[in-house]
C-alpha cells in the first residue's frame, strides 16, 4: 500500500478554485471590453499620431534649446513644491505616527488616527489642490505645496505608525525604569530607534512628490505642468518635447541623489541594509511570501514610485 503510493504519481491538487477565478476574471474583462464606449478604430491612428508628435518634438526642428532655460526654472519650481510639501507632511505626520501606533496609544485612538490618515490618502493631491487650496490661496505654487503637504501627511503618517509599532520594547522599558516621563520615554526610547527609517521614508516621499508636482500645473497649482499642457494643447511640440525631457532627466536625477542619501542613512545607522523603500501595503509585509519581502510596494498611491 505504502510502497504503491510512493511509486504512483501524486494526484494533482484540485484546480477548481483557480479555474473559477480565471473564469471570473475573463468575464469581468470581457464585460469591460464589450461595454466600453471607445472608437477602437481610432487605435489605428495611434502609431501615426505618436510618430508625428515625436517627429515634431525632436526631429523636425531638432531640439528646442530655447525652451531649456524656461523649462529648468519651471522644473525647479516643481522640485521646490515637492520639497516644501514633503517637509510640511513630515513635520505634521510625525506626531500622528505616534498617535497611530498601537503600542504607544490605546487601540481606539490609533484606529481613529489610522482611519483619518487613510481618508487623507484616498484623494489624489491634484484634486486636493484643485478643489480645496486653489479657492483658498489662489492659483500658483503655494496651493500645490499645501496639497502635496496634506497628501503626504496621510502616507507618511501611516508609514511612521507602522515603523513605530515595530520597535524593540527594550529601550522603552529602560527609559521608563530610569524614571522617564511619558514624553521622555518617547524621545529617548522610541525616537532614536525609528528616526533613520522614517527619514528614509521622507526622502522616498520626496521622490514621489517630485512626480506629482511636475503635473500639478494642469490644474494651475504651479510648476512645469501648466506650460507643458499649454505647449501640447497649442501644438508647440518642440517646446513640449524639451519640457518632457527636462521632467524625465530631473526626475531621474532626483531619484539618484535621494536614493543615495536614503541608503546612506539606513546603512549608516547599522540597521538592516535595506534601500529605505517602504512596504506601503501592510498586507504584503505581513502575508508576503518570504521571497517577496523586499517588494517595497512604495509605488503605492497611484503616483508610481521611483525605480
Amino acid at each position, binding site marked *: 500500500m505504502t510502497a504503491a503510493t510512493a511509486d504512483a504519481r501524486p494526484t494533482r491538487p484540485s484546480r477548481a478554485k483557480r479555474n473559477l477565478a480565471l473564469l471570473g476574471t475573463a468575464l469581468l474583462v470581457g464585460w469591460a471590453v464589450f461595454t466600453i464606449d471607445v472608437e477602437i478604430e481610432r487605435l489605428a*491612428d495611434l502609431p501615426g499620431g505618436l510618430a508625428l508628435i515625436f517627429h515634431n518634438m525632436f526631429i523636425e526642428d531638432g531640439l528646442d534649446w530655447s525652451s531649456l532655460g524656461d523649462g529648468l526654472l519651471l522644473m525647479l*519650481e516643481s522640485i521646490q513644491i515637492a520639497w*516644501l510639501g514633503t517637509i510640511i507632511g513630515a513635520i505634521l505626520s510625525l506626531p500622528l505616527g505616534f498617535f497611530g501606533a498601537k503600542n504607544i496609544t490605546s487601540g481606539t485612538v490609533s484606529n481613529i488616527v489610522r482611519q483619518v490618515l487613510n481618508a487623507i490618502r*484616498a484623494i489624489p493631491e491634484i*484634486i486636493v489642490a484643485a478643489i480645496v*487650496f486653489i*479657492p483658498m490661496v489662489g492659483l500658483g505654487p503655494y496651493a500645490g505645496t499645501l496639497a502635496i503637504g496634506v497628501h503626504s501627511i496621510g502616507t507618511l503618517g501611516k508609514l511612521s505608525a507602522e515603523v513605530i509599532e515595530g520597535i524593540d520594547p527594550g529601550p522603552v522599558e529602560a527609559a521608563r525604569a530610569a524614571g522617564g516621563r511619558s514624553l521622555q520615554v518617547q524621545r529617548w526610547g522610541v525616537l532614536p530607534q525609528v528616526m533613520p527609517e522614517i527619514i528614509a521614508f521622507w526622502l522616498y516621499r520626496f521622490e514621489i512628490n517630485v512626480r506629482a508636482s511636475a503635473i500639478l500645473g494642469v490644474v494651475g497649482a504651479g510648476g512645469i505642468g501648466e506650460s507643458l499642457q499649454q505647449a501640447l494643447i497649442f501644438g508647440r511640440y518642440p517646446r513640449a518635447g524639451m519640457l518632457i525631457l527636462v521632467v524625465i532627466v530631473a526626475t531621474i536625477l532626483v531619484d539618484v541623489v535621494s536614493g543615495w542619501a536614503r541608503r546612506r542613512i539606513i546603512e549608516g545607522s547599522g540597521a538592516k541594509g535595506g534601500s529605505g523603500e517602504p512596504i506601503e501595503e501592510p498586507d504584503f509585509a505581513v502575508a508576503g511570501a518570504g521571497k517577496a*519581502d523586499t517588494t517595497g510596494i512604495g509605488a503605492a498611491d497611484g*503616483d508610481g514610485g521611483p525605480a
Partner: protein
Amino acid sequence: MTADQVARTPTARPTKPARSPWVPLSLLIFLGLTWAAASEELGIGFDIGELIGNFTRGFPFLADFWSPNWAFLPQTYEPMLETLRMSIIAAAIGCSVALPISFLASRVTTPNLAVYLADRGILNVVRAIPDILYALIFVAALGIGALPGILALVLFNIGVVVKLLSETVDGVDPGPIEAANAAGGNRTQAVRWAVLPQVLPNYVAYSLYVFELNIRASAVIGIVGAGGIGRLITTERRFFNYDNLSVILIEIFVFVFLIELISISLRRRLV
C-alpha cells in the same frame, strides 16, 4: 592598571561617540535648500501668514461640501462605470505585457547584461513620466476620450508591475532553476517551470494592486480629457458646484475603499 580600569568603568559615564561630520553638514544643506525654496526671490514665496489670512476665503466653497447634492448622484454613474471599465482593461493589458518584460528586467532570468541594462534603462524612463503626462500625450495624438486614458494607464501599470515583479524574481529560490537546468531544460523552460510558479501569487497580487491604483489614477487623468470620472470633476469645478463635487469625491472614496477591501482579502488568500 587593568583591574583599576575595570573597577572604574561601570561608574564612569561612557564617552560619547564622535559625531559624524555628516550630521551638521546635511542639516546645513537641508536648511539652505528649504530657505531657498520658501523665499520670495529664489523659490515659491511660501508665507504662513498668507494662508492664515486667506483661510476663510475657502469657507463658502467648503461649506457647500458639507451639503452634498445627492440629486446629482445618478449623473455620476455612467462616468464612474467608465472609470471601472478603463481600469479593468488597462490592468489586464498592462499586466499581460509586464510579465515577460519583468523576466527581462531581472539578472536571475536574464544573464545577458546588455538586454538587462537596456530593459532597465527603458523602464526608468517609462517610470519617470507621470501618468497625467502620458494622458496628455495620448490625448494630443488621438483626441479626447477613454481610449487615450486606457493607453496612459497601461503604460503606468507596466512601470509599476515590472518594478515590483522583477524585484520578486530577483529574490526567487535558485533551487528549482538549478533542478530545471540539471534536467536539461533550456532557459525558457526554466523560467516557465521553475521561476513562474514561485512568483505567480505575487504577480496576481500586484495585478490586483495596480487595478486599485487605476481607479484613483483615472479620477486624475480625466482632468486632461482622458475619460472617466475625472472629466466630471473638471466640469463641476469650472462652475464651482461644490455640492456636486462633494458627491463625486464621496463616491470615489467609497468606491476605492470597497475595491481595496475586496482586493486585500483576495491578496491575503494568495500570498
